[in-house]
């Protein structure tokens, strides 16, 4: 039945009248997602191609019964947008925005957890349950419905890996881009836990990158708690140490956090690691055989 979002999800887009907000709201709706409301303060009462716009998330929840929010507001206002969604009772909050201050996310993370709200992102492409719903900026053409759960810290790598799966005829249950920032709302483990409980999901692909220790933690967790096959990919083997590679998340500090260390941890947990996206596709095909 996919995880987090499906054909019944009722989505509000915060920042819907912005350029990216309206573009992707309509793309998501075109895919079949129930994009039932938008929010832009001061534009309540307007419509975006038939999607009603509200001044506050609270009104959108009251008016359209939304349960999922997709946030496109600028970085300096993004935490406030998350708080508004959480306070209004939205259960899944997906933030695409990049460049959110890390202290904002520290607070938002703990606030959301205390309220049982699932945050996805920020600095992420969102998530897609192929054939059911697309909430975010993921290009849908490379996805097809199926049994592989995909979870990734990198947006474009998510598409690349999905592309490798799809062109081998392997579909996906849900692909979740958890985001590349140092503090994101949902970790690999949070998503793996859901894939573990999801009947549609038969195998999982985990796409990591240098920096932090999320992949190592996920490897240990999967070995103990997940009884579905996992294939992994890690980007950044040739990244020079001590340099920041785009994501604040991709900082190498000493030996921990290197792609090599992550690969070792994953393999030690019995997880096969592809050397490039192409090989990941081959490995998944193998484990599904």
């Amino acid at each position, binding site marked *: 039945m996919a995880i987090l979002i499906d054909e019944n999800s009722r989505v509000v887009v915060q920042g819907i009248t912005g350029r*990216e907000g309206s573009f*992707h709201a309509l793309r998501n709706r075109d895919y079949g997602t129930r994009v039932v409301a938008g929010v832009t303060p001061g534009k309540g009462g307007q419509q975006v191609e038939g999607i009603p716009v509200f001044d506050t998330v609270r009104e959108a929840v009251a008016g359209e019964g939304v349960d999922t929010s997709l946030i496109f507001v600028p*970085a*300096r206002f993004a935490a406030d947008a998350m708080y508004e969604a959480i306070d209004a009772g939205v259960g899944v909050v997906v933030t695409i925005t*990049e*460049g*959110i*201050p*890390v*202290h904002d996310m*520290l*607070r938002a*993370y*703990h*606030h959301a957890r*205390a309220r049982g709200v699932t945050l996805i992102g920020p600095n992420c*492409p969102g998530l897609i349950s192929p054939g059911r719903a697309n909430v*975010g*900026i993921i*290009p849908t*053409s*490379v996805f097809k419905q199926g049994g592989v759960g995909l979870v*990734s*810290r*990198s*947006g*474009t*790598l998510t*598409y*690349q890996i999905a*592309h490798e799966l799809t062109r081998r005829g392997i579909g996906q249950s849900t692909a979740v881009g958890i985001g*590349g920032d*140092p*503090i994101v709302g949902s970790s690999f483990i949070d998503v793996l836990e859901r894939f573990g409980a999801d009947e549609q999901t038969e195998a999982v692909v985990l*796409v990591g*990158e*240098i920096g*932090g*220790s*999320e992949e190592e*933690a996920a490897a240990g967790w999967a070995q103990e708690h997940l009884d579905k096959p996992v294939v992994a*990919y890690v*980007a*950044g*083997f*040739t*990244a*020079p140490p001590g*340099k*920041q*590679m*785009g*994501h*604040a*998340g*991709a900082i190498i500090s000493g030996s921990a956090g290197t792609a090599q260390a992550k690969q070792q941890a994953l393999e030690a947990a019995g997880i096969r690691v592809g*050397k*490039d*996206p*192409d090989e990941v596709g081959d490995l998944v095909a193998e484990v599904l055989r």
Partner: protein
Amino acid sequence: MDLYEHQGKELLGCMGVPVPAGRVAFSVDEAAAAAEELGGPVVVKAQVHTGGRGKAGGIRVVDDAAGASRAAADILGMDIKGHTVGRVYVEEASDIARELYAAVVLDRAEKRPLAMLSSMGGMDVEEIAREHPGAIARVHIDPLLGWSDYLGRRLAFESGLAADLGPAVSEVMARLYEAFVIYEATLVEVNPLAVLADGRVVALDCKLTADDNALFRHADIAGMRDVSAADPQEQMARDRGVTYVKLDGDVGVLGNGAGLVMSTLDVVANAGGRPANFLDVGGGAKAEEIVQALEVITSDPKVRVIFFNIFGGITRCDEVARGILTAVDQLRITLPIVVRLDGTNQEEGRSLIAEAGLQNVYSEPTMTAAAERAVALAGA
């Protein structure tokens, strides 16, 4: 953004952390004047964004202005691990009785700030952790609740400092946490935190890393950026809003999204090539940003081929294609460009490239094929 010691100390001082008096100096004359003003013996310290300046000879204790002048003359212009010293900090000399270690850092795994205190200061924290496991007391802070005094007490007791230094170190830790929050830092490290002969506890060094994403709220910190210390190409990239890291090879790499660009570097390496750089145009790049990104890459004379790897989500392939075509035209690029476009508006993007029919622009359908083509062209 890493701050220099003198900048970090200025910020800590504002938060009530005791720091010695000091002046920054950009020339020998300024260093002498600073020493004169401070009076008595001073320390002249190289200001660089790297560690190990002591071993490199970048720290000198001198008796007076004349000594400071000589020290500054030696230190200014010195190369420390690839960083040229452009400024020194002249600080009153301290009579150190004991060296401690104190820090507040963002713990990504725990998703909470972590405060650390150790009675073994002066040496590298990794070294303390390695050689004296258990010598570093650690407490996590709930970011919603903030600091509470018991955290300082725990650190003091668990580091064995409570008996004589409890209140002083607890207070310093509270102030360091406040600095961490107020300045939106990801790291505030004081090593050594010194106990002086007269019993005072002062910060003798400071490493403060501010969150670049929060600088819009901190004009004072943003203004501390030392543009002269940045690599000119990296500065050029920053001005253009793209993330660029210079590497050693000859294959210029450009993509959207840090993960994909890193993967591209790996794939280039797997194909036997050597990437010249990491360049991430980020999400939703427009044609003019593509032009600017190409301007950065082509400014590196070592680049022999450019590999464009785009998988469009928020980025649209047609925008990228338009950017490439405009750049080739405007910048008169003759280097071979290998282009791989997938994702949002991929058909339009590929058509634009194909219709333009440029001789030095090659389209490839897959990442691996594109990498192989780029490596082959670099060797040609």
